């Protein structure tokens, strides 16, 4: 009697293990298919595959699907860059919302291999990219610095890069930045506070300079706050924009908070849930 009961228990356990393995295996087998759909499928297939990848979550996303997502983000980055170079609307080549959604999903992977692609996606529509890069801290700093200091990059990418660096300086990363990285960030801030800049770039550079609390940079910001000709010298000639630039510099020097603010991975995850923010 005892032997029969023990045998039945063993069989039940074996069945359960088989079913679980089959289920997990199926999910794993799905991911290469999703990866293929992401890179080779029609627009509708890509959109569906992307949403499936989002729903899987970073923990359940295997290496092949991760690689496909990062590749797709890279491809989108090139599309945006080409469109900007050609001075044609991005929407002519790819749906901007799809581009942003790919960046959303990759930003949630928390995968260091995605850093270059994420840095390339700065300023392409997803505001979650900068938060994700800031989470990497020191590891992502060189890629972001390359964007910020590049004379070829569109001002929107530079702006988002400056915001990302500010998040890093404000201490959102896993550990404090090294002295060398901080030096490079100070140098980047100085570069964007001097010379001709688009007004939004100047604004983001002011925010970063104040966050760095470097006497030299603060002096530049103080000069911008007190002397309109200093603003004009940066290429901002519209009187209203000059006034707004000076106002921003004054407020930041007085300790006014910089916006946008950093969002944690949990907050970002909640914002991406389809039923969030009701």
């Amino acid at each position, binding site marked *: 009697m005892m032997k029969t009961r023990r045998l039945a228990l063993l069989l039940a356990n074996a069945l359960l293990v088989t079913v679980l393995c089959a289920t997990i295996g199926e999910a794993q087998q799905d991911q290469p298919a999703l990866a293929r759909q992401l890179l080779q499928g029609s627009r509708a297939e890509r959109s569906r595959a992307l949403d499936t990848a989002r729903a899987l979550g970073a923990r359940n996303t295997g290496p092949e699907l991760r690689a496909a997502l990062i590749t797709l983000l890279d491809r989108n980055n090139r599309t945006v860059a080409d469109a900007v170079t050609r001075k044609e609307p991005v*929407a002519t080549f790819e749906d901007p919302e799809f581009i942003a959604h790919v960046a959303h999903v990759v930003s949630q992977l928390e995968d260091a291999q995605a850093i270059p692609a994420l840095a390339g996606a700065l300023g392409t529509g997803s505001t979650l990219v900068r938060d994700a890069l800031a989470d990497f801290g020191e590891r992502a700093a060189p890629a972001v610095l390359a964007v910020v200091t590049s004379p070829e990059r569109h001002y929107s990418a530079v702006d988002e890069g400056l915001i990302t660096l500010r998040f890093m300086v404000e201490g959102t990363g896993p550990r404090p930045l090294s002295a060398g990285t901080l030096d490079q960030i100070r140098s980047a801030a100085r570069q964007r506070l001097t010379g001709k800049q688009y007004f939004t770039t100047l604004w983001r550079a002011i925010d970063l300079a104040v966050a760095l609390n470097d006497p030299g940079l603060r002096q530049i910001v103080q000069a911008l706050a007190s002397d309109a000709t200093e603003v004009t010298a940066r290429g901002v000639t519209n009187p209203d924009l000059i006034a707004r630039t000076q106002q921003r510099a004054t407020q930041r020097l007085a300790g006014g908070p910089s916006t946008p603010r950093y969002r944690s991975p949990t907050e970002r995850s909640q914002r991406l849930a389809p039923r969030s923010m009701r």
Partner: protein
Amino acid sequence: MVPLGPLPHVAAQLKRHGFVRFMKTAFTRFCMTLVVVLLAGGCGSDEVLSPGTGPGTLMADFVPVAGGTVTVPIPNQATPEGQAALPTFSRRTLLRATMTGTVEITASPYNPGGAGLPEPGQARTVGLPGFQYNASGLYYCGAQLRVAYSSGGFVIPCVAGESMDTVVSAQGFFYAGAGEAGTAFRTAGSPNAWYCSKPGGPTGPCWYYSTAGQTVTIERVTAELNVTATPTTVNYLDTVTVTVSISPAQAGGFNVPWTIDSVRWVADSFGTQVSPCTWNLFVPNTGDAPSRTCRRPFSRSGTLTVSATVSGDLKQKAVRIEVTPPQLKVTASPASIPSAQSVTFTASVTPSWVTWSLSGSGWTWRPDSGTGGISPSNCWWYEKTCTRTIAKSGWMKATATVGEYALKDSARVLLGTPPRLQLAADKQAITAGETVTFTTSAGGEPYTISSWVYRVDSTSQSVACGTALQCVTPLTTTGTMWVFGAVLDRPDSASAAVEVAGVACDDIVLTIIGEYETFQVNLQPTCPDFSDHGGTAHFSWSELNGGFEDGNPHEPWGMVRAALTTGLEATRTNYNRGGIRLSSGYRCPHGNTAVGSTAPQTSYHMHGRAADMFSSDHTWTEDEFNLLKTAADATGPIESFLWTEYPDHHYHAAW
């Protein structure tokens, strides 16, 4: 006495009356002028008629009625006299006098005319150039308010080619009262007069003044009394700043006079208490400073009422001050014991810095049954912390005195295993939006609640019930309410599930929901997600819900999330450059595809979280786009697109 005329007549008078008589008359005139000048000096800014330099100034009487309107009576002659009573103000009062109208001067039949003089009967409007008040002259002038009409000093009416502006109003301020009896205004009298005579004819006034058309309004300058306390809610003996102020504090450059007459304090408990802020504790205590403050510690809740006289008006304002009484807290550690063992009892008072002592017997041990259960003795009154061996379940009570407060608190010690936290819902199945009452318990033992959370699927939503033992909340989705707390000192949690049934859906809404399935959108909305109305202060429902013809043909039904409306309103505030026009808000799945979206499964427009925008009031340039984008970025959208994204350069953001 020889009547004196204007200077152009000097030669004629000399010829007519001789030198001695002329000099005599001139001396008399000089003395009279001197008297008037001296009188005027006492009245501050009063303008003095100077006979011989023109028809000069006419001073008229009026009856100043506080808050009323009076017509100024002007006698039909050049030497008006009269008097009228000023009202009596028992307290110092600031009055505003406003005069409107015009004055006409007519040359009299006595006016000889010729040689630049007007012919008799000729009239001229000379206006109201102003009036004076005795700003500080109550003592010297007997509270006179003098209204003066002037033709402009040297101007003689009806001189050909002469022009003069007509001034139709004048305004001035003056103080009255301070216990002075009402006094009357009297005109200066004969020195004001100009007398004329035709050669050989009778003598009389040179001009007549019009008798109507002037109005003087006298009104009391009023001000509001304000009383504030900062902060209004404090802990026992915290300092509160009480500020009494008036608004406006000035009128026409004059301070509004006010005094604090009394301060009444009615404490809520323990009978009467001297006001922490009496009238003499407010600084500054004198003068007409716009505000006065008193900083004092408060030990009880109550109402402070300030009575003040503001520009003669008695006013009263009160402010409520809430004082959180000191609290005695008794703890037992551990609060639950498996068998007889040492337990430490601690009594503490909040705020911690106040002086206090245990009162009466200090500690009282009450076992659940019988007596004893504590050894070797009860805690002593001088011990604020004591450790004893406890062998029975029971309560340890402490009493303390802090100022006028007698405080007590107890701590429970349980011998045995504490009961579990329980949660009960008054309904297990509801329709969406119905309210459910969740009630906690712990088998009669003391417990505390730290938080409430409602879980739907794998997501948790905080419920705003704080640390309450009962939570009443409407629910729209099937889920489980979790409550977290501690029974005695052991952390615990409990849950209760609630099933929410679907609600009846409008057919149109069912159609829209069907589209989400047809187009395989990554969202499956339910009936409560949709509405047929809404909108915010600056964005209409039709803008938010579609914004263009093809976006949502199911109007007025649509789905707009709070995240979108909050984000848009915040963006508009940050933008601070006028309106924002939405070209697209919510799109149903069909509409989203119809407008050419290539994100047919995922567009946030279908989630009611995205909007496409332009400026309403500014030319749409790249700079303007970026001003709007910067404003939106500060509100934390998850999507914020570039100028180069779309052919029409609209700004797309999603929250």
